[in-house]
């Protein structure tokens, strides 16, 4: 039903109608207006009465779901490209990032924080400048947008290194240790240009090592998110980190002490009722890998029930994500390894060590829907609104409110029979990414795929 008369000048506005918007914990039948000029969600009523214009296009979505674009908080690489890589010709690095961004957005991930594993200072200084926030130009054709890099290590506990290279792990005793490691400009705002964000948005570290806990307030002051991870922290140490300003836990349960009834460890901080302790900081957000390998579905359900408002689904995907099964080389710093991909399972060749995952974020959402009995808005919240709040971009990303960035995913629902008796039988909904919109422009459509899938 294109309604605008042809003689009116184009205004870049699109009205999506006959759709259900993800608003809070419900799906509401409402129209949404987006502008490709401003890249934002329009206050439609004000546009109508003030600007006296109608959208160029009206798109009938036939009752499908419109969700904020998904936000990925743990992505090591994908589509054959690993962020923690030094290339012979580093000018090719941004080209690879751009390619990844184009591919990634087709999975419904419109924003993410590229994750760099434990590496040397040399690598950080070379790759981090390419991984900083990339959305300033607000160009839809740039694909998925980086909200800043996530440095996972190297200030990790060697006892919980996972597949991180133990040789590069170290401790920090002062802020300059951090600056020396990541490069001063990557974690410290330039005093002459305080508006320019730092390349690094989030640091995962073990708070119990060195002076890390005491460094947290300074990092938080710089607008960084401190995340507890790869840590042997006890409940007391984790609580101290939270009190110091840690607001996130990197892949909860994985690479940390398990919950013990006499010392609940890091997981224990989710059990603190914030309201009971005045002045106590709110409970941290936490990442959950819902690939069916890293965590048992019931564990996921327990974590969700413990603190639903902090629950963030992440993939921890490696560069093999999106590639066929097989054995792939993996350069971890200077060391050459091979990782065997079989389905979504990634194992370090010749071992049982899980080497990240290769799942997509929407598959995590669908798994969670299947296992938890959560509603669709609740599940999508874990990849939209909650990560946006964790990263401090609430109101701009992860919501469909007026003035927010018009990053959208249009989902259709498929009913899926769930035969797994352990997780409850019956039908559950499965979301399928039909369309992806970035800054008010449609950049991917499942049904009308063009060259490279990009419209």
């Amino acid at each position, binding site marked *: 039903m294109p309604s605008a*008369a042809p003689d009116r000048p184009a205004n870049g506005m699109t009205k999506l*109608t*006959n759709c259900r918007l993800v608003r809070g914990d419900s799906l509401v039948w409402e*129209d949404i207006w987006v502008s490709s000029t401003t890249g934002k969600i329009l206050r*439609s*009523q004000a546009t*109508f*009465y003030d*600007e*006296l214009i109608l959208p160029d296009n009206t798109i009938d979505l036939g009752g499908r779901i419109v969700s904020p674009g998904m936000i990925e908080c743990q992505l090591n690489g994908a589509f054959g490209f690993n962020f923690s890589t030094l290339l012979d010709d580093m000018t090719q690095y941004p080209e690879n990032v751009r390619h990844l961004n184009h591919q990634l957005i087709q999975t419904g991930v419109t924003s993410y924080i590229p994750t760099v594993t434990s590496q040397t200072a040399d690598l950080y200084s070379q790759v981090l400048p390419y991984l900083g926030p990339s959305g300033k130009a607000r160009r839809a054709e740039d694909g998925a947008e980086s909200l800043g890099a996530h440095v996972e290590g190297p200030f990790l506990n060697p006892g919980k290194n996972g597949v991180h290279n133990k040789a590069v792990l170290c401790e920090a005793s002062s802020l300059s240790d951090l600056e020396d490691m990541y490069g001063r400009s990557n974690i410290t705002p330039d005093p002459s240009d305080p508006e320019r964000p730092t390349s690094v948005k989030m640091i995962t570290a073990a708070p119990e090592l060195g002076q890390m806990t005491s460094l947290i307030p300074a990092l938080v002051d710089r607008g960084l998110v401190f995340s507890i991870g790869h840590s042997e922290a006890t409940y007391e140490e984790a609580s101290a980190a939270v009190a110091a300003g840690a607001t996130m836990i990197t892949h909860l349960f994985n690479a940390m002490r398990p919950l013990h009834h006499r010392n609940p460890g890091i997981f224990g901080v989710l059990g603190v009722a914030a309201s009971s302790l005045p002045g106590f900081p709110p409970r941290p957000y936490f990442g959950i890998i819902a690939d069916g390998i890293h965590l048992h579905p019931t564990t996921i359900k327990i974590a969700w029930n413990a603190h639903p408002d902090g629950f963030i689904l992440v993939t921890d995907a490696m560069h093999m994500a999106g590639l066929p099964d097989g054995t792939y080389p993996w350069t971890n710093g200077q060391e050459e390894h091979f990782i065997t991909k079989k389905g979504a399972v990634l194992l370090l060749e010749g071992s049982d060590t899980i080497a990240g995952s290769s799942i997509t974020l929407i598959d995590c959402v669908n798994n969670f829907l299947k296992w938890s009995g959560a509603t669709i808005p609740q599940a999508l919240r874990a990849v939209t609104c909650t990560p946006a709040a964790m990263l401090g971009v609430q109101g701009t990303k992860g919501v469909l409110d007026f003035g927010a960035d018009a990053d959208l995913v249009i989902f259709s629902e498929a009913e899926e029979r769930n035969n797994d008796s352990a997780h409850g039988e019956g039908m559950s909904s499965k979301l399928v990414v039909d369309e992806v919109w970035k800054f008010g422009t449609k950049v991917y459509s499942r049904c009308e795929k063009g060259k490279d899938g990009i419209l």
Partner: protein
Amino acid sequence: MRLIIRDDAAEASSYVANYIIDRIKHFNPSPASPFVLGLPTGSSPLGVYRILVEKYKAGVISFENVVTFNMDEYIGLPRDHPESYHSFMWKHFFSHVNIHPNNVHILNGNAANLEAECVEYEAKIKAAGGIDLFLAGIGEDGHIAFNEPGSSLASRTRVKTLAYDTILVNSRFFNNDLEQVPKMALTVGVQTVLEAREVVAIILGARKALALQRCIEQGVNHMWTLSSLQLHPHPMIVCDEDATLELQVKTVKYFKSIEQVALAQGFEQILPSKIRTGNGRAVAPQAITIDQVQSPTILAPQPTTSRLLRPVTPAAEYPVRSVSPDLIPDRMASRLPDPERFVRRLTPNPEQQQQALEEHQERKPKENGVQNGVHPAAFVSSMPHVSSVPSAARVRAVGA
């Protein structure tokens, strides 16, 4: 006045919506000659808007060449406040159809100069060629727009202070906090509504029954401003059964029968063709010549109030209706070929009339033996427009 009664609110809303759609379609609006629609807010028209939106989405109707004027708006309430009438119209109608914002007019309750805003609004209505159809709802006190009891029936668009009752009723939309309820509003006047070429009011629910009764069965009264519709040449009220609770059974039956007969004859609201098609707007008004009919025919139907209050108004401004003289009872005797024979009967004389009737009864088996058993008088009395004839004359006419 036409009163359309439907079983429930849904059917009444459906009737109104379809009527509006039908009118717009017949009008065949164009950018040069758009259909001008007056619109209300409130709970009564919600169903109408819902159906209009459905029909638009089904491709039955387009609002591209429809110009709208809303009745009223609160003063001082932010335009995008959820309870503003801008928001109401946006939420329930404008956001769902293809109406162009340039064609939408709603009074600005935040204008710097409210008086100028009102004058300008009237000018805009005039510039748009006047309102073709004004849809209206009413309050429990029979108010139309914000023209509450006591409003002048000659009023125009203006600032109005809300009645305390209205503020109380509206407080449910403002967290039941009287302080938050706007105390004043801008509203079109009664006269503004009456100058529309057609007015359609939708009245739903038992709460509105008394108001409907006052407006239909009682006289024109400024305490029930909707009653001013009695002065309009083409008013129509559509209501549900609940709203008729206070009406007399005979009133309800009368209007229902009228509708049945009209339907059987294949027409609904009798609108002059020029109003229906919208082609008349550009045509220069023709001089009207009237036959020598001595009858109070409506030559140029216009609200009586406007004739009384503004005698200088050119009649041509109003749509012209075809001449259909009302039936005027006259002396039946004057129609007879040999009046001398009946001269004595010019004075009503019960004895002689009775005698004539008896003669008639005696003749009947001989002359009308093959006819059915319906008494001629019964047939005549079922024709409402003749019922104003004095009964004596009626009987005589039949007898003759």
